[in-house]
């Protein structure tokens, strides 16, 4: 029988931190143990603020050998490589890498389109899915002593959580995710990401969790982040029914973000055209990310959450 409530060392209250009627957020102990084994991948090396477990370009005192240099006065005699002195009769000092922490930011699209869920469906909303993914990745980051921050955005970037470090801060992260504000207005991804890049002084790993439904396009904002030396991962959160709608007949479609109505007589052929448009959009997003060195993964609400985190994101080279 599966255990649905987290056990020590994961505090029990964490398992209910994001639990809502619509989106229960339950992490069992096995799943959390698996998360602790994972590691958020970053292709680039960033300068950290504190000593941690992540490699950096700084020379420090870790066990990871970095290089040799000539001995100079004042160097610690314990760092001299006596074996080299024996062979070459010259004094060299062994240099070790400095392991530092990493700034990891989660940008969650909190627009109305993310909160939409199909009529009569029993699946969780895209926003809940995104929150669960963010919580899982944040736990991985915290477990690896990285500094984690969470941002919500819709038409603009909201106030963030603030940097958190260590697993003890996971409760704070969960509480922040649980109290996510209900943002209104159309999604404006480029403006939000521009604000983010201006606000963040240190570069790091950025996870954008969004459906990318920006009428003005998603390309500009993502390209800006990439240009600002952030390592960006896009987790494209989608619902299967918005990718493959099934309703036919005379419909009055009401957009969740703007309330705009659109009258459609949906037929099989029209739905096929819709599918083609969606497929083109997804291919375009994937191609753009690949082209700009941005990690890209689709996370539909139909995929079980554990599979999504343990398999899909791993396949997308976002975690290891």
């Amino acid at each position, binding site marked *: 029988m599966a255990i649905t409530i987290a056990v020590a060392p994961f505090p029990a209250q964490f398992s209910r931190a994001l639990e809502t009627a619509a989106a229960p957020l339950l992490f069992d102990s096995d799943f959390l143990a698996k998360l602790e084994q994972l590691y958020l991948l970053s292709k680039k090396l960033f300068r950290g603020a504190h000593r941690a477990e992540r490699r950096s370009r700084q020379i420090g005192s870790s066990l990871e050998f970095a290089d040799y240099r000539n001995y100079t006065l004042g160097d610690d005699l314990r760092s001299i490589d006596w074996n080299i002195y024996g062979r070459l009769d010259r004094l060299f000092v062994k240099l070790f890498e400095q392991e530092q922490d990493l700034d990891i930011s989660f940008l969650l699209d909190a627009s109305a389109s993310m909160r939409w869920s199909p009529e009569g469906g029993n699946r969780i909303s895209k926003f809940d899915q995104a929150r669960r993914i963010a919580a899982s990745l944040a736990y991985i980051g915290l477990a690896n002593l990285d500094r984690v921050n969470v941002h919500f955005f819709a038409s603009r970037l909201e106030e963030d959580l603030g940097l958190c470090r260590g697993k003890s801060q996971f409760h704070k992260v969960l509480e922040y995710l649980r109290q996510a504000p209900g943002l209104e207005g159309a999604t404006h991804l480029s403006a939000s990401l521009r604000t983010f890049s201006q606000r963040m002084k240190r570069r790091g790993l950025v996870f954008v969790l969004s459906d990318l439904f920006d009428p003005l396009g998603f390309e500009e904002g993502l390209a800006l982040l990439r240009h600002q030396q952030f390592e960006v991962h896009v987790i494209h959160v989608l619902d299967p029914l*918005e990718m493959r709608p099934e309703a036919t007949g*005379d*419909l*009055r479609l*009401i*957009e*969740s973000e703007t309330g705009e109505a659109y009258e459609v007589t949906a037929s099989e052929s*029209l739905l096929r055209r819709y599918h083609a*448009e969606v497929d083109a959009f997804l291919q375009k997003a994937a191609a753009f990310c690949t082209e700009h060195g941005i990690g890209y993964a689709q996370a539909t609400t139909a995929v079980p959450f554990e599979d999504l985190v343990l398999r899909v994101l791993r396949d997308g080279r976002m975690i290891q």
Partner: protein
Amino acid sequence: MTFLNAWAVGFAGIAPVIILLYLLKLKRRPMPVSTLLFWQRIFQESRRRAFFQKLRQLFSLLLHLLIFALILGALAHPTFDRQILEGASTVLILDTRARMQAVEAGGQTRFARAKAEMANVVHEATPMRQMALITADATARVVSPFTDDEKGLREALAKTAVTDAGGELDGAIKLAGELLRSRRGERKIIVYTDHPPATQPAGLNVPIDFVPVGTPRDNLAITRFATRAVLNSPQTSEILLEVANFGHETAKTNVELSYDGRLLDVKPLTIEPGGRAMQIFPTVPRPGNTARGWLTARLDTTDALASDNVAYAVLPVDPPKRILLVTKGNWFLEKLLGADQSVAFELLTPDAFNAALASKFDAVLLDNFVPNGFDLGTATGNYFFIKQTPFNTSGPAIDQPLITDLDNRDPVLRTVNLQNITLLHAAPLAVPKDGDWKWQTPIRSFEHPLMITGERHGGGRRVAALALDIGDSDLPLRVAFPLLISNTLHWLAGDEAAPILSRRAGEALALAPGETVRIDAQTPWKKSTATGPPAIAHDIFEPLTNGFYEIQAGDGSHWMAVNTFNDAESDLRAATATPETSSPALPAISLARVTGWPLWQYLAAAALLLFALEWWLFHRRQTE
């Protein structure tokens, strides 16, 4: 062009609904979606063509209206007039004979049931299924010619009434065959009767359906009811009554005889099954001059057919003959005429006689007197000369003539016995040679005529001459004398032209010029059946209802009784038993056989083509 289903035009009221549905905005199902991004991309091109979309909508509306109009036209079933002639023709024959008045076990008459059954068939009359209506009793009558007017047929059917007449159905079936002879297409005869004929008329190649509407019933009927004057007693009459039992059980009943509404006699009757009882009522006094002479017989019973439980008869009513006696004084003649109630005489001396007076009397009796310058050819009136006659010859008188020849068939000698009459003298008479007259010599003495009677050819005038001097014989002392004088006077007055007193219902009666009859029958219980002005028959009178009819003539009127008196009508045992009757099958309409496709099929095909076009234009892409 005729629309067979004109009621379909009523569906035209749906057309505004179609337009209204186009004008009304379609109520669409609201559905929240996460984004309209993709829908807008799809319809970005369509919006540019919004104007053409509106035109497409208008075109769609026009197409739908056109399809609707075509369907409406097809439903209305338009047909060329020449096609209507090819439709089915049905002749409905309704039996209106007296036997159809019989009441069935349910209390409904056979005629009412037949009308109800026929009404169901009449309801299906259409231009493609025209019908004619014939009634059958003593004669066949076309009540309604071939028509598609269902309402007219129903009204004609409602006006039909059962009669008291008997008859056969063959005449009506033959008439129906004649009506159908000129009709093309399917034909049929449907007869509504309680007793179909055993055989059908020969040479009739039209199928006949009989709809039986009666079950066998017992019945008691008056089959004869007649009167006649007693010859030896002109003031009395004899009445003959015959009652028949057309049943399976012995019938006991009373027969009531009434005269002018007053009960005259009641006689009990017991009649074996299938038997008859005959009753004679003798010495019924003849009516006075003011009486109508209505005689009715009624059976005190309740059976299936009530109309034959009553019979009508008229006692002969003889108005007194107007006689002018011209004599210088004849005690015998004056006493004789005064005692005879059948005559009303006036006495005149020869000096006062004027030839113009003769036309005011039925007969003029001239006793030993011949007017000066009397000319038989120019004189008016009927004359009876005694002793002196215009036919006397100049020869010597005949002494003690013997009556050797008597023509007992002559009306003047009816019941007259002239044997052993003693005559002293007789004037010699000579029969005229005038070819315009028919002369008879009913009394002769060898070659000498003692009495001459003459009647002008073509009727109108009569003359008689008796060459006897009454005072020179013992004739006035004999019974024969008043009989001879009375017979002669009545013959001169036209007594043998007795009026027709009785007729069977359905028998045609040719009326003499000037005679008229009110068509509605009267009885002691029902004075008149007519609600409006009485209908008058002038030439031919065919009574169809039992009762009394007054025949009006120029110089008076007399009554005539009409009865059924037909064993075939009263015998209800032969009816065909039909507890449940199903409606007959009407002939099929076969237009295509003659004229190809009906017009409505073309309209329906056009509607189908337009429907396919509309689908191809507006729905094909969405359903491919």
